[in-house]
């Protein structure tokens, strides 16, 4: 089976903010070794040379005054890109220990950026950023998440959120201390409990094996504060390409007020055979 990946991303300053502190990235990592013809089964040379490549998708929402928030989100993405560029070509996903090693290195990369931001700007008082990252080495999607940007997966008509917001409101809801309405009304409810460069960092990692036909959505909170989960699911169900989906979603966030920077990536997988 040959899998085709259709991905598109877009960011917009919105209608209220003066600058855009969001950043996003879509990367396809390709092998330098390509087997053009062989009598060997595909999985045999995949084993020999490593996987045929991977895709990296990242959204990050910078927090902090002026250009510093933009720098925080940008620096984080650049560090991840450096790591993935060096590593993914040699990575073979078929072992638990390699899964763990990959996660540990990704986490280390995130923590290294965190420490650098703290050292440069002081203990949690300077710029910070959220991060939602999916590294797709078919069929496995590795997810690293910090803050309140989100990842969703749509499979067989059902949309599910892969990540949980790391906010004070979400924490209080999870403990049963607040209702969702209380969290939405409360100003501290939106405070991040984990951020790269913030006073606390608790990266969450996970994975999901993707199937042909699945779609993945990554977004910053500039989308989800204006567009409901139901509407996100409707748009991802439309029989169109990722670019049109992304433009529709960003357009709806802006039409609903555009109170924050908004960044959206949609990834669609299909069987191209």
């Amino acid at each position, binding site marked *: 089976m040959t899998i085709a990946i259709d991905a598109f991303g877009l960011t917009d300053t919105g209608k209220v903010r003066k600058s855009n502190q969001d950043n996003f990235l879509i990367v396809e990592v390709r092998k330098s070794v390509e087997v053009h013809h062989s009598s060997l089964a595909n999985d045999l040379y995949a084993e020999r040379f490593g996987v045929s490549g991977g895709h990296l998708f990242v959204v990050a929402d910078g927090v902090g005054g002026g250009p510093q928030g933009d720098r925080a989100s940008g620096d984080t993405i650049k560090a991840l890109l450096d790591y993935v560029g060096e590593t993914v070509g040699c990575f073979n996903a*078929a*072992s*638990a*220990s390699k899964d*763990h090693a990959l*996660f540990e290195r990704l986490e280390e990369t995130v923590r290294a950026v965190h420490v650098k931001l703290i050292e440069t700007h002081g203990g949690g008082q300077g710029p910070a950023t959220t991060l939602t990252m999916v590294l797709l080495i078919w069929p*496995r*999607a590795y*997810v690293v998440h910090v803050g309140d940007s989100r990842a969703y*997966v749509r499979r067989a008509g059902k949309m*599910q*959120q*892969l990540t*949980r917001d790391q906010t004070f409101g979400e924490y209080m*809801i*999870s*403990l*049963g201390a607040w209702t969702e309405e209380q969290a939405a009304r409360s100003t501290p409810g939106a405070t991040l409990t984990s951020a790269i460069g913030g006073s606390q960092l608790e990266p*969450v*990692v*996970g*994975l*999901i*094996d993707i199937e042909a036909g699945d779609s993945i959505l990554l977004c910053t909170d500039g989308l989800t504060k204006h567009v409901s989960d139901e509407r996100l699911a409707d748009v991802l169900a439309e029989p169109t390409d990722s670019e049109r989906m992304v433009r529709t979603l960003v357009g709806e966030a802006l039409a609903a007020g555009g109170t924050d920077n908004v960044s959206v990536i949609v990834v669609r997988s299909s069987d191209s055979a």
Partner: protein
Amino acid sequence: MIQKKICMVGVFGTGKTCLVQQFVHSIFAARYLTTVGVKIDRKDVKSGDLDVRLMLWDLEGRDGIRDVNSSYVRGAHGIIYVADGTRKETVDQVFDIRNNVISSIGDVPSVIALNKIDLTGDWKLTPDDETALASKGVNVLRTSARTGEGVEHTFQWLADEAVKAEGQGT
């Protein structure tokens, strides 16, 4: 530091994520959130003189579905099968899941956690039921993700067994 992959397996809503949260973070999340795919946590424990890093793979549970994505459990050193003692059918389901896992990756150290023992009024298993379970050749332990009862012991027992199984224990 040696590393052991431990998988949390069971049908929907049995408390797999809550058990991990209680073990790793000592918290109980009252609100139910479905796990999608696999969430991975880690905790370092001692097994005898050895330092062991448990990599805890919390697998999504699907309602009434008794198979497990074999690529998620591949390479596991131990499995915690989680059943909900207030839903007797989840105990039967966990044995079906266990058979599927064994046919996929072989028989690795495992334990069945009968979770939610704090819900005494809703508990559906009689002492005879639990005795019968224990006679099936698998360790059965009672846990409460809410109060923490039995949680530490369950993970520690499995860590020790996983170490012993590979001849790394003392």
